[in-house]
């Protein structure tokens, strides 16, 4: 398993500003993922971040709104730009565990960042 920390744990931001969320892992991992979880809902994948390459975004999410950095194998950031109240959510990073013979994408999650936009 992996231990994942996120900063900040929560924040209240004004409309039009941006928030950058940091994700730190205690071991080197190939793939990191960013999810959004709206209140009372399930998880929606925003993007997959591999070290040394551009993040891959899911349908409905664009780089201008959710820029991601992945400078090394233990760290990533997600920025939520030009905030609106609709961006109020929990943002979670996760890492994938891969086995050599069979790909089993078990994921380990950080505690999440609760964002409220006023």
């Amino acid at each position, binding site marked *: 398993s992996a231990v994942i920390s996120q900063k900040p744990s929560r924040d209240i931001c004004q409309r039009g500003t941006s928030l950058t969320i940091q994700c730190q892992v205690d071991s080197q991992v190939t*793939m990191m993922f960013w999810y959004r979880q709206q209140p*009372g809902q399930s*998880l929606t994948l925003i993007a997959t971040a591999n070290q040394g390459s551009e993040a891959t975004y899911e349908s409905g999410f664009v780089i201008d709104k959710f820029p991601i950095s992945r400078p090394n194998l233990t760290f990533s950031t997600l920025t939520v730009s030009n905030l609106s109240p609709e961006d109020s959510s929990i943002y979670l990073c996760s890492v994938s565990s891969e086995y050599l013979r069979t*790909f*089993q994408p*078990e994921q380990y999650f950080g505690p999440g960042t609760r964002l409220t936009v006023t």
Partner: protein
Amino acid sequence: TQLLEQSPQFLSIQEGENLTVYCNSSSVFSSLQWYRQEPGEGPVLLVTVVTGGEVKKLKRLTFQFGDARKDSSLHITAAQTGDTGLYLCAGALRRALTFGSGTRLQVQP
């Protein structure tokens, strides 16, 4: 439209009761996982099932993967208040996970 539908969405039961949560899809998955999420925390992996028809037990929790690898169930025997949380199934397609709609379980003392 949710690729993985879970039922029920909400469940409130008394301690000691049994319950089953279902996770259904029209897609075939290479593996399926169950997670539990408590307030203020990220989801925590409970189990991974890989083979069609596979059954795994984790203390009072029994997980089953459908023969066609399109559906799964989670059965909890003699529920305890500590079982309260959001239960999420997640299916692996290629190299990404798709999460189910979630089942929120409340176990009353």
